[in-house]
């Protein structure tokens, strides 16, 4: 039979000895100056060191290897601290679309850190940041997300940010969003795409609430 039992397999699965602290200085040097494989290995090793969050985030700026970037984003999401969330939020202002997208995905993986940060982000001066922040509301409970998105629609002037909020409401909005959506669609000069999207969101929310009413009757 050609099947062979692995010679080295069966090695016990084990984590590193917690008493052996990683050599952060050496890992920092590898992260900054190593080959792509060495940088990725350093990023993965530093992902177990909460104090290294700033180091990891700083390395993203000049990093072009997608594997290293991914390891850093995964590391920051895995650490999941408030500092990590703030470092990732800062990347939403990056001109690099890869960094913005990576930061968004990583932030979506740390939902516990978002409720305290999203309200301010949704009032950011930069409409691009406000737009991206709307997407992050999807990881919240539907009542929280509905309240936040409704508040956005009541004050927001930028149609694309409104559309992002409407998109979230179409997915998880609750009935209290209906009058807010109606006002949004009725705004003078509301662009056609926003009126269309608002109509879909209202239809979906109504359908869900009508069914709930029927079932409760």
């Amino acid at each position: 039979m050609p099947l062979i039992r692995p010679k080295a397999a069966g090695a016990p699965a084990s984590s590193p000895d917690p008493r052996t602290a990683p050599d952060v200085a050496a890992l920092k040097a590898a992260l900054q100056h190593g080959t792509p494989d060495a940088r990725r290995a350093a990023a993965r090793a530093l992902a177990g060191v909460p104090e290294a969050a700033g180091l990891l985030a700083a390395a993203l700026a000049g990093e072009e290897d997608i594997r290293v970037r991914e390891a850093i984003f995964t590391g920051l999401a895995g650490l999941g601290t408030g500092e990590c969330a703030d470092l990732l939020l800062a990347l939403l202002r990056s001109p690099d679309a890869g960094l913005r997208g990576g930061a968004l995905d990583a932030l979506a993986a740390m939902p516990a850190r978002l409720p305290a940060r999203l309200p301010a982000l949704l009032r950011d001066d930069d409409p691009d940041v406000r737009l991206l922040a709307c997407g992050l509301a999807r990881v919240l409970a539907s009542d929280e997300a509905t309240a936040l998105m409704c508040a956005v629609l009541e004050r927001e002037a930028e149609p694309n940010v409104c559309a992002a909020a409407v998109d979230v409401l179409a997915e998880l909005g609750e009935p209290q969003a209906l009058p807010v959506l109606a006002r949004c669609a009725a705004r003078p000069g509301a662009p056609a795409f926003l009126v269309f999207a608002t109509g879909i969101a209202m239809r979906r929310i109504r359908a869900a609430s009508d069914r709930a009413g029927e079932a409760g009757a």
Partner: protein
Amino acid sequence: MNEDEFRRLCDFIYRRTGMVFTEARRYYVERRVTERRSATNTASFAAYFARLRRDLDGEVEQFINAFTVNETYFFREEHQLRCLSGDLLARRIEARPAGRPLRIWSVPCSTGEEPYSIAIWLLENWPMVDAFEIEIVGSDIDTRVIEAARAGHFGRRALMRLSEPLIAKYFEPEGPESWRIIAELRNSIDFTTVNLVDAAGMRAHGVFDVIFCRNVLIYFDDASRRIAAENLYDNLMPGGFLCLGHSESMSRISPLFDVCRYADAIVYQRPREPRHG
């Protein structure tokens, strides 16, 4: 469920699990929702959807279970085994250094049906099987199922997809409804414990040509799924393949892998060369 409810549910399922359902599978989705509403005694779709979104009493896992046949048996998802023997191994032997065995990993392997299926499938269906040394490793986080896998006792249900000649060839009857896989196969496969999110434990298993990691990542939260994807990447040789369950998608989890579409299955490949962002 009306169209709008269906779209809302599909959006939620996609964001939570990466599973994609189109209108063509609406009946299938509706059946599962009806089952879960009945099981949870939920009066309306809206009430059930709220329960799902809040993950009350672990409803997300229950819901996913309803979509994935949460049982294991020999030759489950046979199309992936056809892909293994028909496409993947041919690609791997092109890239293989002389003298190195082909390595295949089944993780999680539960009670052993998958790694034993891979062994039987290759012995029966891969014409090159005698030309190479093949190592198959089965791993799981649960030490009890690993012990069961090593013991190799199976009932009729686990063997339902196997022909009588295959059962006669690879199993020894133990009773009217129970069989034991032959010692030669039991002794050919190494069974170990591993946690998919433990980098050191995963690394200790070395690198593989093909990894089967089916129907487990959908149960992880986003952060754990990303870590598992990084670990699986490290456990693949450059050019090696990752096979997920039929309802899973790595594209939703990580950009590290290339999508490969073969006649029998969609699989994910670790690129041979690093890519730039």
